[in-house]
């Protein structure tokens, strides 16, 4: 029984950690390249989620038809045009709106990232971190309020495709009984986050572009002296981080119905992840993301909470405090960072 419970909490931690890692990866990438502490990064995660919402709204544009079942007053029900005109194809497209939203979100998030960097962030490269935090935090609030204005304050549920809306009996597959079941979409999310993380690492590791970026992260001045326009590449990296955060948001919508505030909820945790992993360390962000996700899940177990009530709410911050005290540069941070 306890083994089942532990396994389930590991899975919970991995899928939550996947989201933390994806957001933290972008955060630390931007910090490592541009030296900017971007508090608007959570807003990019939220904007990605709203790309999925927007696409679903476009696909389900409806006509209003009188609702005959209501006699008290004139009520209307909405009939989606696409599904009404093309029941099979239309129904399929609407059912798969979240996966389709990935394609929809990539160019949008890239454009948003580039505009954000060129239009605002670049003016703050040489300013103190406090200025960067203030301006990006302000930007995050503005983005939030814009989304709230157009989409309202309430969460907007998004469905996973019908075929993956159930749960997998993992226990039965591995001969561990029927108590280890896990939703398909959460497993897909875990696989997706691992793929994106792998893709980003491969891009930085095995392409010339990535090599230059890594060199720039080590010594920006030297790369510039070699005649390489490192600034342009860093701008593209900002766009890439924006896409990664956006995709994390798109895929998270069937797990957590998006609302305007979701970015801020994740941002704080993701910053803790970056600090624990080490500012500017890509591997550290991923490691800390999964580690803290799993720790948070374990801390939510009744057995643990009965010993230390409320530990599920503070565990992440507790770890951050310990890491900052014992190893200020984080688990995999470069020597000197946050240590002076």
């Amino acid at each position: 029984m306890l083994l089942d419970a532990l396994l389930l909490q590991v899975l919970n931690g991995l899928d939550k950690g996947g989201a933390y890692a994806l957001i933290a990866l972008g955060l630390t990438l931007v910090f490592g390249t541009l030296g900017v502490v971007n508090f608007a990064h959570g807003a990019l995660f939220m904007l990605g989620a709203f790309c999925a919402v927007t696409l679903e709204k476009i696909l389900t544009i409806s006509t209003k038809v009188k609702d005959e079942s209501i006699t008290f007053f004139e009520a209307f029900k909405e009939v989606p045009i696409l599904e009404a005109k093309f029941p099979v194809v239309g129904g399929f497209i609407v059912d798969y709106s979240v996966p389709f939203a990935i394609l929809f979100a990539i160019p949008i998030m890239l454009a948003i990232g580039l505009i954000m960097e060129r239009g605002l962030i670049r003016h703050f490269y040489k300013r103190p971190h406090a200025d960067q935090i203030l301006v990006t935090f302000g930007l995050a609030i503005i983005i939030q309020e814009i989304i709230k204005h157009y989409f309202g304050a309430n969460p907007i549920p998004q469905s996973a495709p019908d075929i993956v809306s159930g749960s997998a009996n993992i226990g039965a597959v591995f001969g561990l009984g029927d108590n280890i079941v896990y939703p398909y979409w959460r497993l897909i999310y875990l696989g997706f986050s691992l793929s994106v993380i792998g893709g980003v690492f491969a891009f930085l590791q095995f392409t010339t572009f990535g090599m230059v970026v890594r060199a720039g992260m080590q010594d920006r001045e030297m790369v510039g002296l070699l005649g390489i326009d490192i600034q342009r590449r860093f701008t593209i990296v900002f766009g890439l981080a924006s896409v990664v955060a956006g995709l994390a948001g798109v895929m998270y919508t069937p797990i957590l119905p998006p609302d305007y505030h979701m970015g801020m909820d994740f941002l704080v945790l993701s910053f803790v992840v970056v600090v624990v992993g080490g500012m500017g360390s890509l591997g550290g962000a991923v490691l800390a993301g999964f580690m803290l996700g799993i720790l948070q899940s374990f801390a939510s177990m009744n057995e643990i909470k009965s010993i230390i009530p409320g530990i599920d709410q503070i565990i992440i911050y507790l770890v951050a405090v310990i890491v900052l005290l014992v190893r200020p540069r984080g688990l995999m941070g470069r020597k000197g960072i946050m240590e002076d």
Partner: protein
Amino acid sequence: MSKKTTSAWSRRDVLKASAASTAIAGAPLFFTRHAYGAEYLNNPGSNSTVTLGFNVPQSGAYADEGADELRAYKLAVKHLNGEGDGGMMNTMQPSSLKGNGILGKKVEYVTGDTQTKSDAARASAKRMIEKDGVVMVTGGSSSGVAVAVQSLCQDAGVIFMAGLTHANDTTGKDKKANGFRHFFNAFMSGAALGPVLKNAYGTERNAYHLTADYNWGWTQEQSIQASTESIGWSTAQKVLTPVGAGDFSQYITPILNSGADTLILNHYGKDMINSLTQAIQFGLRDRQVDGKDFQIIVPLFSRLMAQGAGDNIKGIFGSTNWHWSLSDAGSQAFVKSFGQEYGFPPSQAAHTCYVQTLLYADAVERAGTFEPCEVVASLEGHKFDGLGNGPTEYRAGDHQCFKDVLVVKGKENPSSQFDLLEIVEVTPRAQVEYPVDHEMFAGGDLGTCNNGV
């Protein structure tokens, strides 16, 4: 020669003057009840308008309810001012409302966003009382907020007409003389649900509670546990979850190994939508435990939540204060009026807020003054009908309304996007009634009313 003493005032003159003075001083009391001009906070005096404060969550976990509450308040103001079709003003009995505002003063309102947070709600209510000069604050959707604002109104000296607040505490340990609740409470939900659950699921069940970690969640958990244990069920585990947790997976997975065959979700609003959706994603309703189908119960239901949760709500039992499909004249008048205004039926949150506004206005009319203590006296023990819940009484001892309670179930085959809940039983008032000093409501003191002066 004796000197005759003369005076401008004879004994007879003094007596006449005294009688006249007494008559003049007494005249207002004779002609107009309570018109002796006692001062009180935000007295509208000779103004042609009076301002009410609608303090609702426009953001945060209960924003859905807040938006609907605000719609209802606006409709109530319209009706009080003699505009529109009058809604429930036509069915309310007894009624002193005339459709010319309140005491002839046009009703105006200010709104505030509680953000579903106690501190923000108190700041907003304070602003309404101090800056906007409201005579009454109303609103709800979170019991934590309701208790905080009720206490502020008590201290400030204005009336608080609670909107949607379901915790026992609101009219239990945190009750205040200036506060009144029309909405039902967690104890009533438990009392109404118990017999229905016994009929539907038998007497041998093992329940697992997931509970929102604030006063409403705690009192609902306590009430439902008492109710289910009284029908023979056992309680496997009670787990507190943070409000607005979003992802409840780490709280749901332990249920799989707990041996429980029933999940009771003491969540509301966005939290309930998320936890129910995720519980179903984890396949709980497809499970069997010791030969019994796993069941989920949501003790406090609302149609707005049902809309957010979609198909997941089907077949799930809960209780509600009111439902738009009720066929009594009051409910129909309100649904018609609200539907014509906004194009969809009102929620239970909208209903209770609309009713509270009318009840306040009626109490002021009967008292003949906005003076808070007179309004309190006018509401205490007031019996009324025609507002959608059948005969109802504002009990003087705790300012809680007593009326029938609805047990509902998520409809399997809804006929429209609003037709999501079916009424399983109308539990009579006698079955949900309790003494003022019941242990779940003990510890508080109503105190005395405060008029702010």
